[in-house]
């Protein structure tokens, strides 16, 4: 594997996420520093940390969506699916149209497998703006995870989900890991999945 320069990220074909001594900056001000981890297929990293400790920043740095960082960082971006705090759904379009959009964007044929899994397939023709918060979250998750990427980065995916939804999602996560995928997720809840690694960003301030 190529030696990486500080502050450079490299897209590689090996399914592994390697983060060494990572420091992320927002406005020239370090949010966290010295984070390291190494994820191989079937690994599941659980990130915890108080509000503002940098969970979102960490995920965005992994995705090259954050401006400044130091340390080395290696992740196959084209294998990565992401869902952040925001759902990215157009309120005027129907569930079906939104779902189709996100799948097509990732060159996937339409499939309502995950809509069915989250039990929201009955809402297919409803415009998003009429849905409840949790329903929206489920649809966003279905769109993001339905792309069949092998790495999942999920930022507080359990927010707004009901108990059943949380269980359904954790089933998906477990299945994905068993299927030699990689899952990174952040949450304020006690993990209901079975993470193989876990870090708390409060330790890296």
């Amino acid at each position, binding site marked *: 594997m190529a030696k990486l320069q500080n502050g450079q990220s490299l897209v590689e074909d090996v399914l592994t996420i390697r983060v060494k001594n990572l420091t992320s900056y927002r406005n*020239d001000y370090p949010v966290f520093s010295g984070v390291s981890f190494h994820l191989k297929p079937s690994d599941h990293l659980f990130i915890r940390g108080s509000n503002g400790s940098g969970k979102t920043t960490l995920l965005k740095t992994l995705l090259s969506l954050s*401006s400044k960082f130091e340390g080395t960082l290696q992740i196959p971006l084209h294998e990565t699916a992401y869902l952040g705090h925001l759902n990215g759904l157009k309120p005027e379009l129907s569930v079906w149209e939104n779902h189709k959009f996100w799948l097509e964007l990732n060159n996937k044929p339409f499939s309502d497998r995950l809509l069915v899994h989250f039990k929201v397939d009955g809402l297919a023709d409803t415009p998003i703006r009429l849905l409840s918060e949790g329903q929206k979250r489920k649809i966003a998750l279905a769109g993001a995870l339905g792309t069949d990427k092998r790495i999942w980065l999920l930022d507080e995916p359990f927010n707004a989900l009901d108990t059943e939804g949380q269980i359904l999602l954790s089933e998906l996560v477990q299945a994905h890991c068993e299927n030699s995928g990689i899952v990174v997720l952040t949450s304020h809840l006690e993990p209901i999945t079975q993470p193989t690694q876990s870090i708390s960003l409060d330790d890296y301030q």
Partner: protein
Amino acid sequence: MAFSFWKFANPHHFGKLVAAITPILWVLSGFFILSGLGWGFIFTPDDYLQGSTVKIIFVHVPSALIAINCWLVMLVSSLIWMVRRHRISILVAKAAAPVGLSFTLVALVTGGLWGQPMWGTFWAWDPRLTSFLILFLHYITYQLIWIYISDKESAANISALVCLIGSVFALLSRYAINFWNQGLHQGATLSLDQDTNIHNVFYYPLILCILGFVLLFVTLVLVRTKTEIIHNQIKLNEKLGRKSNS
């Protein structure tokens, strides 16, 4: 070099160099400008066509020249930033912009003032004038980007982009007359075979003025770049200080 160039670039040599040569530059540019303007204003005859207004040339032409070349300097340093991410380079562009802006304004105003007696109007939508005006607006945009985009890295990136776009108009203000000749404005007056263009009496003082203006420009940019660097360093220290306190 580390990624966080804002923090680590070493501006030491640069600072020393600037400190050493600025006094000389100040003196030289002052000398050339004063002698050029003095010669031009006092010892040249009034033009038989244009009367004494012709003397505006000694201010108008050098400042228009610098207005355009300053943008090209900014273009080069912005490109270096975009490709090599060299920190001082973007600071040079940032430091040069207000200087260029001022010269552009001077060129616009003197041009307009000259246009009134020459063409009977302050302004016309002639290709060179239009592109020069657009260049002027780009100078303002460039300035505003640095002021209003608070994240320095983003500001650097976007300002470089604006610089790229604006260069089209910088080049047009120089060469537009070659494609579209329906304009009012003068063609090239200062080509190498001087006799065909402009009378010697105007030529020499004009050259002096141009030299002086160029030196003034260089001096100002160097000094401002140095200030920028120091400014950056102070802010950074403040931030790091705050972090270690909390």
